[in-house]
């Protein structure tokens, strides 16, 4: 019954889609003016060679502000839903639980710990070179967030919690999100539009170029990395420490 309904509705949707796609140009013959305009003016006007990052943080920076706050809100939602409820209590020593995850082998520890340093450096490289080469705040922030994951995979929850103390990560996330909005307000304070590029533009091709794009990229990287580490912490804490009251003793 459900499959018949699905088939009928899918046929209808496909008919609409085909009718709409008939008006589109064939793949490979892009015609629209905006892409060409942005490709042509991005380097002369903003000294940024990566046009996609320039669009994200300068030409359409307001959309990116909204997207960053979507990420912020969802991390808040995850933390809220996974918090300790009133009928749960916290385990004291999660590592001595016989039903918990097994300890990592030596090869795993060596490999993951050796990867932490290169990942941090690579993430920072992608964040700082956002306006020059493909990359930027989001991509670099995500790569930075996998470094604490490597520490967790090396086996010890205590070291993971020491590396990512919750207070510091929360402050970092708030700094990233609030800093983005403050940079926009600084544009207003300088007498121009919100999120307008007001810092000196520098030389095309050097790292400290294109004004506020660099600053916003760094702030976004901090916020994304901190947000994902927070969500990871909440998941791991919930899985390993919190349990129902009265179940285990």
């Amino acid at each position, binding site marked *: 019954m459900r499959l018949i309904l699905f088939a009928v509705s899918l046929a209808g949707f496909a008919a609409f889609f085909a009718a709409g796609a008939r008006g589109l140009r064939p793949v490979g013959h892009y015609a629209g003016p905006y892409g060409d305009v942005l490709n042509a003016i991005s380097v002369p006007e903003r000294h940024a060679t990566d046009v996609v990052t320039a669009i994200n943080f300068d030409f359409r920076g307001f959309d990116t502000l909204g997207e960053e706050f979507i990420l912020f809100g969802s991390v808040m939602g995850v933390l809220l839903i996974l918090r300790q409820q009133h009928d749960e209590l916290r385990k004291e020593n999660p590592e001595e639980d016989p039903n918990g995850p097994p300890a990592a082998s030596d090869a795993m520890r060596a490999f993951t710990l050796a990867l932490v340093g290169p990942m941090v450096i690579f993430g920072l490289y992608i964040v700082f070179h956002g306006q020059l080469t493909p990359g930027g705040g989001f*991509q670099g922030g995500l790569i930075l967030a996998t470094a604490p994951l490597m520490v967790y995979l090396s086996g010890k929850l205590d070291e993971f919690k020491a590396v990512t103390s919750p207070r510091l990560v929360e402050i970092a996330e708030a700094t990233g999100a609030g800093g983005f909005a403050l940079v926009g307000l600084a544009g207003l304070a300088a007498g121009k539009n919100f999120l307008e590029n007001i810092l000196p533009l520098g030389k095309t091709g050097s790292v400290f170029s294109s004004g506020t794009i660099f600053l916003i990229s760094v702030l976004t990287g901090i916020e994304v990395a901190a947000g994902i580490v927070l969500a990871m912490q909440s998941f791991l804490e919930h899985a390993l420490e919190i349990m129902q009251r009265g179940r285990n003793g």
Partner: protein
Amino acid sequence: MILLLIQLWALLLLAAAALALVLTRAPRDQTIGLSFYGLLLALMFFVFQAPDVALSQIVVGAVALPMLIMLGLAEVRRHTRERERENKKK
């Protein structure tokens, strides 16, 4: 010409992988499939000349999403085991 062939091949592989992913019912097997599908999507973005998007998709679709789902599955398994232990006690 070569690029066109690679693009067509990437699109067809994507369609086949999507169908295979949906038809896998066990969540644990499907998570590995999701990681592979994410990597395949990143490859398709790369041959369609979109490196920013490919970078983002590699980390999100092949690392962050399967990690979230694996953590959810571990949580579910722990709840099931606690429930069974409590049912056995009764």
